[in-house]
């Protein structure tokens, strides 16, 4: 079975995968809600870190917990908990970020059975020199809580191993992204998204093996499809793979992305340091920031523009989860930046489920702007 097929299989059977992992390793699973949660520490604790995501189905169970203008992702994620689909989780954690997903965490804590919840008080003033020392302290508390829960000490060797594995994972995924620079990328945007989402659900060691296999496959992988317009996807949380697949049937290919089930999640590596927690803290304070954390627009904008140029894109799909105010803050700035650089943009707003007909029309019209030449 090809690596990508394996990723797809894990995505389709994610809950089964986690439960099998628990049996096989006689271990515990820890669910995390935001990409600022330090997966390295969870893994070092001998647990399977599982990112909690939605299922993109119409649901009517969250309205009594989350008010109407909470972002659909936070809503969909909570729905999974309320429906008992994550009952196998032993621990729930989240690093402090936005109020929307905070609502998911708080309600999960109160209304979904779970053995332990731990809230990591991520400092939000990441530009301040005071942030790192504090985050180290916060991590110490997290480590103690996990040690107490598992009854197993988290040693430096454990942390070394975890950091090593996650850094490898990041390196390998970046190598895969390199292939997307080719004129005919051997991997589609949807497949890449499947790869990254899988990395948030799987045992990272296993995911690394699959990445090595994928990197062997890619050089002679042929997709009998028309590349069409080279697109970049920029925005908030986004794991609606069905949508990306639909989009890529319309004569375009997503060749690079900037969102939290893509590059923004994994791009930065941990710089090893004898103080392991300090090294991890540095990674999350200096990482590619989500607008929910960093107040400043520019650093993110600059990194996005560099990617856009390096991957030689023709257009940008700029999207947000409906009601995601942190991203709504950045969008006007980003729009201006792309305009100043003559990069066409299409803005879309995502909900738990989306009206395919209308989105299809918007995307086709957008692609026509880029490709339809008049005689």
């Amino acid at each position, binding site marked *: 079975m090809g690596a990508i097929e394996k990723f797809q299989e894990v995505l389709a059977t994610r809950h089964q995968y986690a439960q099998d992992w628990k049996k096989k390793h006689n271990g515990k699973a820890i669910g995390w809600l935001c990409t600022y949660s330090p997966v390295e520490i969870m893994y070092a604790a001998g647990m399977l870190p599982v990112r909690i995501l939605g299922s993109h189905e*119409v649901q*009517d*169970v969250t*309205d*009594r917990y989350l008010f*109407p203008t909470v972002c659909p992702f936070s809503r969909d994620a909570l729905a999974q908990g309320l429906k008992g689909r994550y009952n196998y989780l032993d621990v729930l954690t989240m690093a402090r970020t936005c109020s929307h997903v905070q609502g998911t965490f708080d309600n999960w804590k109160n209304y979904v059975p779970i053995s332990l919840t731990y809230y990591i008080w991520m400092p939000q003033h990441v530009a301040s020199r005071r942030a790192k020392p504090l985050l180290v302290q916060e991590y110490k508390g997290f480590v103690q809580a996990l040690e107490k829960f598992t009854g197993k000490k988290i040693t430096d060797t454990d942390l070394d191993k975890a950091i090593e594995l996650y850094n490898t994972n990041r390196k390998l995924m970046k190598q895969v992204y390199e292939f997307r620079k080719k004129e005919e990328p051997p991997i589609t945007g949807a497949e890449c998204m499947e790869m990254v989402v899988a990395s948030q659900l799987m045992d990272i060691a296993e995911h690394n093996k699959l990445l090595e296999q994928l990197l062997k496959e890619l050089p002679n992988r042929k997709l009998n499809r028309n590349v069409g317009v080279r697109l970049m996807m920029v925005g908030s949380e986004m794991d609606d793979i069905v949508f990306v697949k639909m989009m890529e049937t319309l004569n375009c290919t997503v060749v690079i992305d900037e969102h939290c089930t893509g590059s923004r999640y994994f791009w930065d590596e941990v710089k090893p340091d004898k103080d392991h927690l300090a090294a991890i803290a540095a990674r999350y304070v200096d990482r590619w920031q989500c607008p929910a954390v960093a107040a400043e627009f520019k650093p993110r904008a600059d990194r996005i523009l560099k990617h856009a140029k390096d991957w030689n894109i023709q257009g940008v799909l700029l999207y947000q989860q409906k009601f995601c105010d942190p991203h709504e803050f950045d969008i006007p700035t980003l729009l201006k930046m792309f305009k100043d650089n003559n990069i066409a943009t299409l803005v879309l707003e995502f*909900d738990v*489920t*989306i*009206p395919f*007909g*209308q989105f299809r029309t918007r995307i086709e019209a957008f692609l026509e702007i880029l490709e339809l030449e008049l005689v």
Partner: protein
Amino acid sequence: MITAGIDVGAKTIKAVIVKDNKIVARSMNPTGFEPVVTAEKTLEEAVKQAGISRNDIKKIFSTGAGRKSIPFADHNVTEVTADAKGMNYLLPSVRTIVDIGAEEARGISSDASGRVLDFSKNDKCAAGAGAFVESMSRALELTVPLMIEISHKSTKEAPINATCAVFAESEVVSLIHTKIDKADIAHAVHDAIASRVSSMVRRIPIEKDVALIGGVANNTAIVEAMKKHLGVEIKVPEKPDYVSALGAALLAAA
């Protein structure tokens, strides 16, 4: 003692006359543009039906959206209070009432005596109300009864993601354009409403028995869908559209 209740709704006006705790007459007319005239007419019809004279009526209570516009009413009560009272008379075992009118839906939780404990309503959105069915039936080019009928024959799930009635209408149109079976679309429409309504009703504690009232309660497809979404049996009293008027009449007797 004889009392009357008048429910002035967005679409129809209903009157119920109660004599010594027994229903003796019911009548209904489309609201039209002159609710007062229609209310007068509707009450007169009920009076005839009951074989009494207007002066025999000791008290008249009005309810419904236009409850305050009825000059000959002695007093007015909100639909929520009236629903709870009327329901308690018809089916005393009911603790949760779902009332779906033309433009408004409510969830009401009441005690054994028919007193309101808590309620929720849909905010500024007709998606979870009767009007939704009608605009969809137009998009489907079917009469409402036919739409209900075929909806029961549906075999496949069809997605209607939009919550706004008109927006959903365009989804229905594009579903039609993508050749999805009308039966499945009709089913999806009812499912969409039920999903909206149960979402709203879940804001109050849902205790058995649960009853569905209001004009839409005559729509068997919605009753089915509501069962599915709330996961409970749903009772529908006979003449579900008269419950508010009945409650008002009973309150007038109290």
